[in-house]
């Protein structure tokens, strides 16, 4: 039985004399025993410690050595410093720049893993209180037998009830604490060991997320692995502003659920609009398809300032720290509902509902903290209904006249442009606005990430973000799209049907668009990439803000991508798994391929499964707008599984890439599990983590990173066709490394045979072979014999 690292009983006896004899130096620890149905043999690493998978990490890090990109030359984390780490210098603690950068990456990933785990803990505790410890885990009924693939390979357990999930969370909390402690001054000193711990944080993060989503799917009856989950409304224009409007922001859905429940129970469901941003909105629509998603995280300011929300309810994660100030600007009361984000507000959790509502409506208090989701639901609904007639949608967006007058005050100092993460041409747009032409301001809307740094930087205190929003008013009202509600897990039967074609390469890849909305050129790029790969019959998955951005596009018939493509996990599907915490369903699909298709054992068998996925499952993660520490830890969870992740250009600010070198032949050998021979496979996949400069580069790279050593010749030919086609279209030329991906002549796409054969001849290419690939000598069958 697996043993939790947390010990319940610890007995130490230095010396004990009794009638029976003398005992000296006895030390006894009894771990918590977890009941586990014996479905299969337990693997070597249940509940792995920070070092149990270190050797696997080192194999990956040897192939993909870190390349560090420090923001500055200094470390200022302790009072020895600040320490200059430039030109090979070490700090007062002895740390060098490489270790310091990897330490920063570990800190980011610990923050991310802690955030998801704490969210999961909060959610599980609440759901246990509401539904009981014995509430069964059910993420897909009979269609999903492998209900918790990540938890299985990491922890080696099969959680059956909400109560069982606490064991996994105990583990996550222990590991995050260990990992965080390693970043203390005078602890870890090696950058490679820091990197191994980064991978560990990512793996733990995946468990935390999986627990959170399993709990909410099971208890709230979200869509259960349903490819036909309902299509729900998304976009600014879908909100009926004539009604009282509640806006929810964040990631923890119980307050939003309670709002919906209160409205339904009191016959108010059609009278009040429940709208939201970010993952709370996604999860609210999984609970109630009538709830509406306004947009991804970057829509926060523009939506609040529009004056449409009558009440703002915030929970946790990715919420603007100035949400209270912004809500005040439009005279909308704010309710904070999470202990992680109290905003300095009075705690009214124990007060009567009507007293809180009266204070909010009268303006005696601008906001309240309520740490009881049920009470949040009632207060939010009552307040919205009563405050709406008073507010009359009071907004903080200037009139056109005010924009023009304000624009005339611009001194063209360019501070706004320097502050803008996307280097938008704000000065030129404002200059045009001063002459009465707002078109250039409206154009900026598409690429604006909604951070409002331009406003903070402006010495004239011009509300530049609001200028952009006003100029784009019409465009925003036209934002009416459909998104498929997050379906959760992938069904076992779907895996059975596509497992073979994926592993053999005949489905050219599985591409997951995940992460935040810090896009270099607007969210439409995500929709373009999503559709491009669905059209090419890759399996496309989405989650979180990326899932929303993928929806915000219409074809000539006015249809959104989720209306054009089915939600099935199959070639040409666009599969929205759900919110941030639904990401493990993506990793889980890869894991389930190893289990259901290849019959590999899962329980506590992380290394073998990761080796399988890395060498056989052509999966690529794309976090085009990756912004947060959570996005970093989500990515690192994929790295440890050997799945490459591409981030957008802003992702370079994570300060470390994991880059392969296709020109170093010696890096690209695997063992042939049949014979034990070391076989050259070509750079497949070439990188584990890298920031692409443009969407064009990302698209070519997605096709390239989908190749795996295990591809059959037919599969490789299909993958090469996409790689070459995208390269020709977007780069205007044939790839210059095609010879590295052709193992035998049968790999060559038949329609390009002459052209590629010529290239191979020029490159003095030699025929290779296709192994049964593994990086693990223990899996060589000949040795076993």
């Amino acid at each position, binding site marked *: 039985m697996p043993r939790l690292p947390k010990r319940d009983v610890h007995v130490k006896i230095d010396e004990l004399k009794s009638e029976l004899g003398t005992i000296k130096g006895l030390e006894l620890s009894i771990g918590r025993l977890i009941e586990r149905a014996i479905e299969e043999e337990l693997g070597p690493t249940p509940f792995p410690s920070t070092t149990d998978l270190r050797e696997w990490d080192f194999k990956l890090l040897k192939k993909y050595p870190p*390349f*560090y*990109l*420090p*923001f*500055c*030359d200094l470390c200022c984390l302790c009072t020895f410093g600040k320490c200059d*780490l*430039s*030109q*090979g210098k070490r700090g007062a603690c002895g740390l060098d*720049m*490489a270790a310091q950068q990897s330490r920063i990456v570990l800190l980011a990933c610990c923050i991310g893993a802690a955030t998801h785990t704490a969210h999961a803990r909060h959610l599980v505790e609440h759901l246990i209180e509401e539904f009981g410890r014995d509430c069964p885990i059910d993420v897909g009924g009979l269609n999903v037998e492998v209900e918790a693939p990540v938890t299985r390979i990491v922890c080696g357990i099969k959680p059956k009830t909400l109560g069982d999930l606490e064991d996994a969370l105990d583990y996550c909390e222990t590991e995050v604490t260990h990992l965080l402690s390693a970043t203390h001054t005078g602890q870890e000193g090696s950058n490679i060991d820091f990197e191994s711990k980064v991978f560990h944080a990512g793996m733990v993060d995946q468990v935390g997320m999986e627990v959170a989503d399993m709990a909410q799917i099971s208890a709230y009856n979200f869509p259960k692995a349903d490819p036909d989950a309902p299509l729900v409304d998304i976009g600014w224009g879908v909100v009926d502003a004539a009604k009282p409007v509640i806006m929810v922001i964040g990631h923890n859905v119980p307050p939003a659920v309670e709002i919906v429940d209160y409205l339904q129970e009191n016959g108010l469901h059609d009278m009040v609009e429940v709208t939201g941003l970010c993952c709370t909105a996604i999860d609210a629509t999984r609970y109630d398809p009538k709830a509406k998603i306004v947009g991804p995280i970057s829509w926060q300011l523009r939506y609040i300032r529009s004056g449409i929300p009558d009440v703002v309810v915030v929970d946790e994660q990715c919420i603007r720290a100035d949400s209270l100030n912004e809500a005040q600007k439009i005279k909308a009361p704010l309710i904070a509902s999470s202990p992680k984000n109290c905003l300095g507000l009075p705690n009214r959790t124990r007060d009567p509902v009507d007293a809180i509502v009266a204070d909010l409506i009268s303006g005696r208090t601008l906001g309240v903290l309520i740490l009881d989701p049920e009470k949040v639901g009632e207060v939010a609904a009552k307040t919205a209904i009563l405050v709406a007639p008073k507010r009359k949608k009071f907004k903080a967006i200037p009139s056109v006249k005010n924009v023009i007058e304000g624009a005339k005050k611009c001194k063209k100092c360019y501070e706004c442009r320097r502050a803008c*993460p996307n*280097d938008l041409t704000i000065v030129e747009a404002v200059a045009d606005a001063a002459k009465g032409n707002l078109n250039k301001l409206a154009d900026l809307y598409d690429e604006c990430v909604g951070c409002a740094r331009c406003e903070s930087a402006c010495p004239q205190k011009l509300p530049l973000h609001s200028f952009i929003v006003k100029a784009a008013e019409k465009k925003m009202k036209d934002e009416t799209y459909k998104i498929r509600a997050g379906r959760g897990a992938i069904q076992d039967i779907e895996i059975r049907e596509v497992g073979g074609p994926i592993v053999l390469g005949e489905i050219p890849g599985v591409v997951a668009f995940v992460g935040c909305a810090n896009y*270099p050129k607007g969210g439409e790029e995500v929709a373009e990439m999503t559709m491009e790969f669905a059209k090419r019959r890759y399996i496309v998955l989405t989650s979180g803000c990326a899932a929303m951005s993928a929806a915000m596009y219409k074809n000539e018939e006015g249809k959104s991508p989720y209306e054009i493509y089915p939600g099935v996990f199959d070639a040409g599907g666009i599969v929205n798994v759900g919110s941030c915490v639904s990401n493990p369903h993506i990793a889980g699909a890869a894991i389930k391929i190893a289990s259901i298709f290849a019959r590999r054992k899962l329980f506590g068998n992380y290394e073998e499964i990761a080796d399988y996925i890395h060498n056989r499952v052509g999966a690529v993660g794309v976090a085009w707008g990756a912004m947060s520490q959570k996005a970093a830890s989500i990515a690192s969870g994929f790295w440890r599984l050997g799945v490459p992740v591409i981030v957008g*250009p*802003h992702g*370079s*600010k994570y*300060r470390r*890439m994991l*880059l392969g*070198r296709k*020109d170093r032949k010696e890096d690209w050998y695997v063992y042939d599990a049949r014979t034990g021979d070391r076989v050259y496979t070509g750079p497949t996949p070439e990188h584990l983590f*890298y*920031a*692409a*400069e*443009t969407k*064009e*580069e990302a698209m070519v*790279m997605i096709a390239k990173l989908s190749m795996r050593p295990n591809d059959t010749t037919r599969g490789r030919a299909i993958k090469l066709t996409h790689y070459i086609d995208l390269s020709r279209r*977007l*780069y*205007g*030329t044939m790839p*210059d490394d095609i010879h590295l991906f052709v193992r035998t002549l049968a790999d060559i796409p038949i329609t390009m045979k002459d052209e590629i054969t010529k290239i191979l001849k020029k490159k003095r290419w030699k025929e290779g072979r296709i192994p049964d690939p593994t990086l693990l000598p223990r899996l060589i069958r000949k040795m076993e014999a």
Partner: protein
Amino acid sequence: MVERANRPILIVGHKAAETGLGELIDYLIQFAKTSNVSVVATAHVVKEFIERGFHPAAWMPAMDIANRLRDPKWKGFDGKGQYDLALFIGLPYYMTWLILSGLKHFSSNLKTISLDRFYQPHASWSFPNISVEEWRKNLDTIENKLKK
């Protein structure tokens, strides 16, 4: 610095085709020919070069060329050895910042120049923040000096 360099390399990002200087790609092709510098095109800007009949020494992601430049054992695209000067233009400002910092720390023998019009503190040499007009003049001056 360009004249003194034995093995210069010019890294051109996609913004070189989007800048206020309409014909910057043409200028860079001329610059490369005049100074005998190898050109690496990043992202999709290779298309711009090929359409003008100029084939860069290579095209690859910015992160890839930066990663090679920090490897003292790398022999370059022509097999003749590591480069000693890298000039950057046309990448997003923050990417250039981070790459220049990475090279400053982990590629001690490499000199770097930023040819963009915004100051890059991690470069061995950079323009200050300048207007498009000043930028144009400065680039012309550099090219004229190299012609001599």
